[in-house]
């Protein structure tokens, strides 16, 4: 049984963490864990208020159509309906958007994607609301959808802003340079959906002052508040976003297409209004990973050293820009991967189509290019007759090397160490070596797998991501630490999305103040902003802000004592609620030193600034980078093309392990999301219409699909500019595992495998091939 379940083992993970019970480095469990497992943790969908109304959103059944007329008369006249709103009822800004304000709150003249909101209804029963939404009569003039991103350049503009959202022509080095060996490839990456386990939901409650409170599973409450206030034509102070429990977020999980109507309906009716999305609406409404088309040409010398990389990268942004510009910057900047490439010429485009909207999903841009450049490295190794790991090792970057953007890598970049660790890790046993075990074949326990048709393959993936926002984004976070009565409280608007921030904040305060009991307050927009929960931001900026605030409290606490005894505060230490001096002469308790006082401190953390990429894609655009190497072992049934990932051995550059248990869980989760992107997860469309927007048609990995995950090595080389020297850990395994799995399937079948997710027909070996 040991081989069949998803197990993670940590080998060589640094000092024994089990001895620590609190503070940095301890495997402190999440404070919410038991409530979540017992089902008592309140998520947005669980909220209820006296006299509430139910909202429903009317969404476009067409990917592209002109709206001739909208008639809400019938819907308004239905018994139980309290309000119907359309674009005419938006008092403030009609457009919004995370990157660029290009998305209408309600479509007014044109619908640009399947599922775009057109109207919303509030009624006294959810069924009434849904029926009333269906009773809104919309006359469409159906237009031809643009669904092929390559056609977007030539097509009629789908939006007043045009079809080209961003173009980056990166030029680095000598365009004439060439190598003896050239390999080319064309790659396609599918549309992964974040598929949060809890679909979107929210509750809007009108305030007596004419404002509104929104209870949402927001991951970026301040930005959502500002968007909502602009839409309602209210000052930001009169809109408050209260963050409820977030049921899973591997992306910008929230669909503002329902948030904005929700508040409008509450303001219009004067009643609380609740909305819960169906799974179908969830798939239609929120953003997806950018489907990407990539064309690559790698030039190398006879020894396998890379000379030049040429690439064209086309991101399908869907109908609206959202964060496509950021995704494109990451895709272009990391197009060559963590390899030294002296000459790089990368053209990247993000274009508008009538496909489902794309936006921030963990590892945006970086995942797509990783699959492509690693496929190129496999091709190169094959052409040179070289071991694929060896070829990669000859080219990996290290601290001091230069990215194709001209930015020097100043953070730890132990790429060679990571790759060697996974390469040298013992391979899992073959079925013939352990015949007594019941071996899980591709296709599963009741599948059609036949041992004689199964081939094993081993492949490698090496990936990189950036942490924090890029290109000059102001990545600031503010936190307050309060100590009273021997208990510390953290107030910070960093949203706990499951990434473990609240646990980390408790550990930081425990470490700095020596106080074991630490609470983290719930988040709303009355607190100062901490920014969105993505790209490892909160481990870095919010963790940094909490540390600074805790240190300020520490100084306030110790200053009088230090003054009294004529020593500096650095010579005093706090452990287990006791304050002792370096020489042991002074000893008192924290409670005594506090003397009934309440100590508060607020601090900010703002990393060093970055700059936008220039017209040639050059610039110091990133604050920090994280790396990961994965060796995948797969079994492929070469007749049916079914793939089972047997094992993923991973080594990652983590800077410093802050919470071993949480870190392992994050890596396992990331790797598993990558398995989905590699094998099954693709939200299919047919001429712009979303097909099978449900969890039967959209196959997320189950326990049987998840491989054994071996964390072979966690390299703890501290990043001096990051708080605690720690790097964010969630994104880079997601980015790297699909590339590693595709590489292993390539090794098993000899097929090119140039498309993700890998379809069974791409993993079939037919005679004559």
């Amino acid at each position: 049984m040991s081989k069949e379940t998803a197990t993670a083992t940590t080998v060589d993970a640094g000092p024994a963490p089990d001895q620590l019970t609190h503070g940095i480095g301890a495997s402190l469990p999440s404070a919410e864990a038991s409530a979540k497992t017992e089902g008592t943790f309140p998520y947005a969908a669980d909220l209820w208020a006296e006299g509430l109304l139910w909202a429903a959103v009317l969404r476009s059944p067409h990917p592209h159509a002109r709206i001739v007329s909208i008639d809400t008369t019938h819907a308004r006249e239905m018994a139980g309906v309290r309000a119907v709103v359309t674009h005419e009822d938006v008092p403030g800004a009609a457009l919004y958007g995370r990157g660029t304000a290009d998305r209408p709150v309600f479509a007014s003249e044109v619908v640009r994607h399947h599922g775009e909101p057109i109207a919303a209804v509030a009624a006294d029963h959810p069924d009434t609301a849904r029926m009333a939404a269906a009773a809104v009569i919309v006359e469409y003039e159906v237009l031809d959808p643009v669904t092929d991103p390559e056609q977007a350049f030539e097509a009629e503009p789908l939006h007043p802003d045009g079809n080209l959202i961003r173009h980056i022509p990166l030029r680095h080095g000598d365009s004439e340079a060439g190598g003896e060996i050239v390999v080319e490839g064309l790659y396609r990456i599918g549309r992964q959906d974040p598929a949060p386990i809890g679909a979107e939901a929210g509750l809007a409650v009108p305030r007596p002052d004419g404002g509104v409170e929104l209870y949402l599973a927001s991951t970026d409450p301040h930005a959502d508040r500002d968007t909502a206030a602009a839409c309602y034509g209210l000052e930001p102070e009169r809109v408050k976003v209260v963050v409820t429990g977030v049921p899973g977020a591997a992306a910008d999980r929230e669909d503002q297409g329902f948030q904005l109507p929700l508040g409008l309906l509450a303001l219009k009716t004067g009643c609380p209004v609740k909305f819960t999305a169906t799974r179908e609406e969830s798939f239609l409404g929120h953003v997806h990973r950018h489907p990407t088309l990539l064309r690559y040409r790698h030039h190398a010398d006879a020894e396998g050293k890379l000379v030049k990389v040429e690439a064209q990268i086309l991101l399908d942004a869907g109908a609206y820009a959202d964060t496509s510009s950021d995704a494109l910057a990451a895709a272009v900047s990391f197009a060559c991967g963590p390899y030294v490439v002296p000459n790089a010429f990368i053209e990247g485009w993000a274009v508008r189509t009538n496909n489902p909207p794309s936006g921030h999903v963990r590892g945006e841009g970086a995942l797509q290019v990783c699959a492509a450049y690693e496929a190129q490295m496999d091709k190169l190794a094959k052409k040179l007759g070289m071991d694929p790991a060896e070829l990669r090792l000859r080219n990996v970057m290290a601290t001091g090397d230069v990215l194709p953007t001209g930015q020097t890598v100043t953070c730890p970049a132990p790429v060679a160490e990571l790759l060697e660790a996974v390469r040298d890790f013992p391979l899992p046993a073959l079925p013939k070596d352990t015949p007594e075990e019941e071996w899980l074949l591709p296709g599963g326990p009741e599948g059609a797998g036949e041992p004689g048709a199964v081939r094993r393959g081993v492949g490698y993936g090496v990936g990189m991501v950036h942490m924090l926002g890029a290109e000059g984004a102001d990545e600031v976070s503010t936190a307050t630490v309060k100590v009273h009565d021997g208990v510390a409280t953290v107030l910070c608007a960093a949203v706990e999305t499951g990434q473990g921030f609240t646990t980390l904040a408790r550990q930081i305060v425990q470490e700095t103040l020596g106080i074991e009991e630490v609470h983290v307050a719930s988040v709303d927009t009355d607190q100062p902003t901490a920014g969105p929960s993505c790209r490892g931001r909160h481990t870095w900026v919010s963790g940094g802000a909490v540390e600074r605030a805790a240190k300020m409290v520490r100084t306030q606490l110790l200053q009088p004592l230090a003054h009294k005894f004529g020593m500096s505060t650095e010579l005093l230490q706090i452990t287990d609620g006791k304050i002792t001096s370096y020489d042991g002469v002074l000893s008192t308790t924290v409670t005594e030193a506090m003397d009934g006082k309440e100590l508060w401190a607020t601090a900010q953390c703002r990393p060093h600034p970055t700059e936008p990429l220039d017209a040639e894609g050059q610039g110091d655009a990133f604050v920090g980078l994280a790396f990961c190497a994965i060796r995948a072992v797969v079994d492929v049934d070469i007749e049916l093309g079914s793939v089972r990932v047997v094992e993923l051995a991973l080594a990652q550059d983590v800077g410093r392990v802050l919470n071993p248990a949480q870190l392992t869980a994050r890596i396992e989760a990331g790797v598993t999301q990558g398995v989905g992107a590699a094998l099954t997860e693709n939200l299919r469309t047919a001429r712009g219409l979303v097909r099978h927007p449900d969890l039967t048609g959209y196959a997320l990995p189950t326990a049987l699909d998840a491989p054994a995950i071996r964390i072979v090595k966690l390299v703890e080389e501290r990043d001096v500019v990051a708080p605690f020297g720690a790097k964010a850990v969630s994104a880079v395994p997601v980015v790297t595992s699909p590339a590693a799995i595709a590489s292993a399937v390539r090794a098993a079948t000899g097929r090119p495998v140039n498309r993700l997710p890998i379809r069974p027909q791409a993993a079939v070996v037919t005679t004559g091939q």
Partner: protein
Amino acid sequence: MGQREGAAGLTTHAPQAAQAVTLPASLDEAVAALAAMPAAVPVAGGTDLMTAVNSGQLRPAALVGLGRISEIRGWQYLDGHALLGAGLTHARMGRPDFAALIPALAAAARAAGPPQIRNAGTLGGNIASAAPMGDALPVLAALEATLIIAGPGGARREVPVSHLLAGVDMLRGGELIGYVRVPLLHAPQVFLKATGRTGPGRAIASVALVLDPARRGVRCAVGAIAPMPLRPLEAEQWVASLIDWDNNRAVAPEALAAFGEYVAAACIPDPVPAEDGSVQPLPPAVLHLRRTVAALARRALGRALS
């Protein structure tokens, strides 16, 4: 569970609307309940029905729950046949005692989905939904099972499963599938399913194959590739004639591969040549499906004869 108060007087508990649900204890009571309320919808495991309800496609005025009809939740023996209750769950059919009786149906039941689905979903529901991906359907087609349908006034009529699935003889208003009569063949049976993943999933293609040594027959049905299971009758007869029934049921290894190709070509035929004699090649996805069916049929026969 009590209500929990949150901020701003919010609670986490919503009042539920009542629904008209009848829970008859016998098949005839259920039929009577349906006759009394023609708008009512029968529900057994609810694994298909509730999806339609939750997505708003179906708003049943009333429900007739079949879960308490104990007479259709087990099976009995009758003249060399098993009379399977339509309320048998996939989980129950997957157990070893059932597998010893009808191995292919047990294998299909075990492959039918995750445990939650198998615990709820029933044999009768699989037939009534008649979804192309229904895993029990190719097995019932290969076994040439007969349905015993209960009608008003204690009426019972028999319909071959293929007639119902093909729409030749449909369920009439107020009728319920009561039992499924399946021959007991006392010989190897195989059900194989390709899903494209390791965890439970919908079939891309499935093959059920049963041996009938008494009649020296091989019966095979291919599921999921057409609206109903397909029977490659010629391929069955051809391969049955090659099997040495008296001598360990031996067959030449090349015959296995040829059988696979035969079944695949019968279910996914070559395109008809155009007037000028030219033949359009099958699209790659269809070719892959054909290869999948061929591999499944070859493997199924190989396992049945080994």
